[in-house]
């Protein structure tokens, strides 16, 4: 692996991001909208004499942290989609660039943008509601790490489908990013979900992350089992997703990457 090639991809991405007003808006608009909607909803619930403590913190940290997952996923899959839109796939993959270097670059972009999304969301929550997400404590570090891994795993899974089917499946870039949210217990506890959905939800690392955060906020006890399970599951899924991407890339090369540019 050559660092200069990874750096070239990262530099190019930042140049595009900073010059594209639409992408800056995209980065800020949707998280902000969610924060406003869920912020007022949680304020209303808290004022309605409910029995759940810290509803504001739970719901707002839920939405801010979900955007970490979404952004990490989006950076991976959208990066590839933009290459398809630009008809640049053949140009890119006929250079000395190795697939491991491309994967490393998009992971770094996903992590950076996921963290930036977290900082932006936390700042907005603090400005609008005077609530500090970071007051949850150091438990957030492994939780954010797990959510980044989960987002990257979803991103690589989507990219695997994109590299084989091209723009025919481009809607998945947005759809898969939100598909797992209802099953990940982002805003509500796992036991609320019907039993058959619980089975699926228990397979998702995000479920353990959000359950862990809720448990810690309400009891003050660090839920090690939740955190370890979420880290292990997300690492496992990320590994499988990268291997799957590599497999689908090789399958796509059997048919030829040029066909992806004629969609």
């Amino acid at each position, binding site marked *: 692996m050559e660092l*200069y090639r990874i750096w*070239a991809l990262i530099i190019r991405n930042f140049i*595009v991001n900073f010059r594209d007003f639409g992408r800056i808006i995209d980065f800020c608009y949707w998280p902000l909208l969610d924060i406003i909607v869920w912020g007022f909803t949680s304020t209303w619930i808290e004022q309605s004499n409910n029995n759940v403590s810290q509803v504001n913190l739970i719901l707002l940290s839920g939405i801010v942290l979900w955007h970490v997952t979404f952004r990490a996923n989006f950076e991976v899959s959208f990066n590839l989609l933009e290459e398809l839109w630009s008809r640049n796939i053949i*140009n890119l993959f006929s250079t000395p660039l190795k697939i491991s270097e491309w994967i490393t670059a998009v992971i770094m972009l996903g992590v950076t943008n996921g963290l930036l999304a977290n900082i932006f969301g936390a700042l907005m929550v603090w400005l609008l509601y005077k609530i500090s997400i970071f007051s949850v404590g150091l438990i957030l570090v492994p939780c954010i790490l797990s959510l980044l891994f989960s987002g990257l795993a979803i991103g690589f899974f989507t990219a695997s489908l994109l590299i084989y089917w091209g723009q025919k499946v481009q809607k998945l870039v947005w759809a898969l990013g939100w598909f797992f949210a209802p099953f990940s217990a982002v805003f509500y506890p796992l036991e609320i979900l019907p039993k058959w959905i619980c089975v699926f939800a228990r397979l998702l690392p995000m479920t353990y992350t959000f359950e862990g955060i809720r448990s810690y906020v309400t009891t003050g006890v660090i839920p090690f089992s939740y955190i370890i399970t979420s880290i292990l599951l997300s690492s496992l899924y990320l590994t499988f997703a990268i291997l799957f991407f590599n497999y689908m890339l090789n399958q796509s*090369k059997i048919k*030829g*990457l*040029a066909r992806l540019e004629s969609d």
Partner: protein
Amino acid sequence: MNNTATLLNVNALVKTFYGRSFWWSKKTASYNAVNNISFNLGRGEILGLLGPNGAGKTTTIQMLLGTMTPTQGSIHYFDKDFSKHRSEILKQVTFASTYVRLPNKLTVYDNLDFYARLYGMSHANRCSTIPRFLKFLDLWHLRDRYAGLLSAGETTRVMLAKAFIPNPKLVLLDEPTASLDPDIVHTIREFILEQQRNHATSLLLTSHNMDEVTHVCNRVLVLKEGTIIADNTPEELAATVHLARVNLLVGNALEQTVTFANIHALKYKIIEHSIEFEINEYAIAELLINLARAGINYTQISIDKPTLEDYFLQLVRTHKKPQGL
């Protein structure tokens, strides 16, 4: 088979396409887009890949770039197996085509800078080389324009700059001048030849433009239905065609000449006051003698020798697929 002067060695390359490719799906009827082709490309050589649509030119280029996996056969660059040393080899092998594009939201300069970085060029080298190529290809005034706003001709010139900036040993060009205006075609052709002369860069190019292939290529491979059906210089290939066109300005004798042509069963075409015979080049003298005997006078005569295009048309129309393939 390999020697020090050989940059590229393609051996028994086959590409078979199946209807479906996953383990759960049944394989449907297959066909060979590239059928057991072998060839070499030497240092400083310009090799043309000719063939009608669907002949396997682009499939071959894709396999040579590593963006398509061959079904069988091997590709060696610089005596190294491409399947094992892809990244190392592609530092010296670049690509340009009119059919691919560059990221729309990057300027011309940023795009070239990005690709130069991928080839490991230093900051100082990029800063001196990129402006030189931009000026040479008359793109300097477009350096800050987004790639998405360029015309087809401008995009092609940027793609060529991208391909030549890393100073490669071999450039693969897929129809570099397709659908472009003649003046741009001329500029691009001169640029390619100058690069080849100054840096001994080898080129492999596909084209539908026979004139371009004749003027640029040292050697031509003709592909049909995935098989190489000819491998020679453009001149030698054209010389295998014995059909010549004799154009006579006959004025008032046009009707008489047509009757003459019909009597002698000659293939002809009327162009205003001229008549053009398409005959074997060895029969030209006999034709002129017979015209004189028939009392047909002409005020002007021009004889067009066979071109690569004539060869191409004849070969494509008449060649039958070899048995056993």
